[in-house]
């Protein structure tokens, strides 16, 4: 059996390893588009604060890990797919035949459609290459404008602040992390950041980015001085906001969300919506083609519908289940579970499942704004369906256990409504550990 995997992120790597365990004889080729060994984007913030070297981001630390497992890694990109003949065309010109294919191409940053987004000094924070640019430009005292206070924006806030930059954040939503945190929690995170000296503009859009001296002029000056355009001039960029403000910047980081890497499938017969539609075995509409991770739109545990959940645990679950099915071990996927944990300048937040609540459901919350502590639980009848927390670091995973285990709370629902912090007790009591 010849297996091909497109994409060397967590989904692709876990799939390759699972294939090897399940089918010791099969040939496995893992195609990655970036020059580095498979690495974790999740670890980039820790690279930015120089807690780890680049090698610390690698998904597998032993240099001969893949070779030992008989997994061939190729740096290349897929340019065309011939599905009837089960053949990929690669940008190197090579072809690759497969019996089973996994598409795990992940996602990429959404490019904000404003003038100046391609100027030197404007970067995403997505790849190791992006991280190198940020490490170079985010020097102490540098003015940095971060566009987007979503998950990625917030997770790199701390790194930027620790680097001693002068930071401003611009978010179009009415609070920070609007797709992960409710109004109360999102606003508390905003207040926390402001108290730490960061300028936060919510409900604000970027209209455009300009090179202060005009791109031509800047290039000439820096060219004469023998500098590259990016490091050539202090506060070389101007960021124009729709609230009338204009921010000076040495570095602009764009973190305005991600979208699945599925363009190369246009014109193929693989069915797409927001991502590649997959069934409960992670199979696409073409029987020998599977999809996993950020690019896949699979079953959502909470709603039963199909959703793209661009998070690490989903990538890892998808990769494993897809590989088992590819190798012929029939395995059902029960649905991905939406959950996130975020550390914004030391304020730890998390949300789970249907944190925004459900119609006809009820909820309880406790809030100590002065301590930046918050806990919200959402229920449907006597089952918890979602939760949001701020400042909770102990036993936080039990929120997943209670929600995803669909634990019947019985009398513990009332107890939780009186004291939401008794999560572990509720879980232990209702799972007959008591």
């Amino acid at each position, binding site marked *: 059996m010849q297996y091909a995997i497109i994409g060397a992120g967590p989904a692709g790597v876990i799939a390759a390893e699972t294939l090897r365990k399940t089918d010791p004889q099969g040939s496995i080729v893992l195609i990655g588009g970036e020059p580095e060994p498979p690495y974790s984007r*999740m670890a980039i913030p820790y690279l930015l604060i120089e807690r780890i070297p680049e090698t*610390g981001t690698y998904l597998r630390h032993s240099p001969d890990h893949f070779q030992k497992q008989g997994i061939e890694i190729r740096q290349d990109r897929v340019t065309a797919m011939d599905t009837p003949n089960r053949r990929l065309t690669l940008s190197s010109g090579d072809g690759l035949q497969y019996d089973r294919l996994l598409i795990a191409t992940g996602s990429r940053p959404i490019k904000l459609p404003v003038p100046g987004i391609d100027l030197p000094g404007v970067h995403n924070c997505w790849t190791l290459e992006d991280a190198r640019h940020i490490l170079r430009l985010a020097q102490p005292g540098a003015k940095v404008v971060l566009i987007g206070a979503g998950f990625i924006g917030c997770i790199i806030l701390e790194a930027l602040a620790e680097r001693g930059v002068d930071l401003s954040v611009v978010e179009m939503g009415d609070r920070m992390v609007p797709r992960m945190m409710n109004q109360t929690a999102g606003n508390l995170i905003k207040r926390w950041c402001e108290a730490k000296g960061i300028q936060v503009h919510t409900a604000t859009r970027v209209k455009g980015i300009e090179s202060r001296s005009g791109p031509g002029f800047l290039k000439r000056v820096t060219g004469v001085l023998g500098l590259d355009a990016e490091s050539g001039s202090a506060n070389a960029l101007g960021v124009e906001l729709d609230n009338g403000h204009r921010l000076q910047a040495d570095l602009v980081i764009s973190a305005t969300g991600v979208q699945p890497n599925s363009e190369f499938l246009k014109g193929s017969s693989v069915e797409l919506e927001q991502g590649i539609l997959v069934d409960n075995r992670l199979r696409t509409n073409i029987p020998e083609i599977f999809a996993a991770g950020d690019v896949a739109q699979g079953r959502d545990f909470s709603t039963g519908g199909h959703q793209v959940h661009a998070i690490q645990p989903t990538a890892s679950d998808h990769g494993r289940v897809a590989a088992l099915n590819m190798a012929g071990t*029939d395995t059902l996927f*029960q649905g991905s*579970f939406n959950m*996130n*944990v975020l*550390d914004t300048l030391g304020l730890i937040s998390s949300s789970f499942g249907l944190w925004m609540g459900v119609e006809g459901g009820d909820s309880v919350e406790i809030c100590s704004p002065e301590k930046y502590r918050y806990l919200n639980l959402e229920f449907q009848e006597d089952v918890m369906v979602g939760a949001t927390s701020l400042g909770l670091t102990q*036993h936080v995973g039990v929120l997943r256990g209670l929600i995803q285990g669909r634990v019947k709370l019985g009398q513990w629902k009332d107890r939780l409504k009186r004291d939401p912090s008794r999560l572990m007790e509720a879980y232990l009591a209702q799972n007959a550990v008591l």
Partner: protein
Amino acid sequence: MQRSLHIDPEKCTGCLQCEMACSLENEKVFNIAKSRIKVFTFHEEGRFVPYTCTQCDEAWCMHACPVEAIQLNKLTGAKVVNESVCVGCKVCTIACPFGTVNYNEDSGKVIKCDLCGGDPECAKACPTSAIAYIDANWTGLDRMRSWAARTDTSARA
């Protein structure tokens, strides 16, 4: 033979010596807030329940780790955090449905029970044998594990 922690809540008096012993062994301080085993109190039922990682086979924490910082100790069966590799991303703390992986703000890393390398201090410190370290087949962990299987996002067809 692999052994595991057997917990018998009926014997627990809530003395918290397990928490003290755990904190001293692993964090070198008497600070129950840093214990990896935790005694939960049930006033209504008049009961104390010590609880920690069951070293479950699903190993949600280990599979969710993006940088391979949690690994299986093949001798003890424990899933062990390698502090030098952990970047502190906390994904394991939300992935563990038992709530037994915690973030330690002082170290910027996560902590969980590692069975003290095969000689758990909590069991040794327990004066009533509410916590015992015994042959894995005898423990009541099976019911916790069967629950773990119920929440498995990828139950076998």
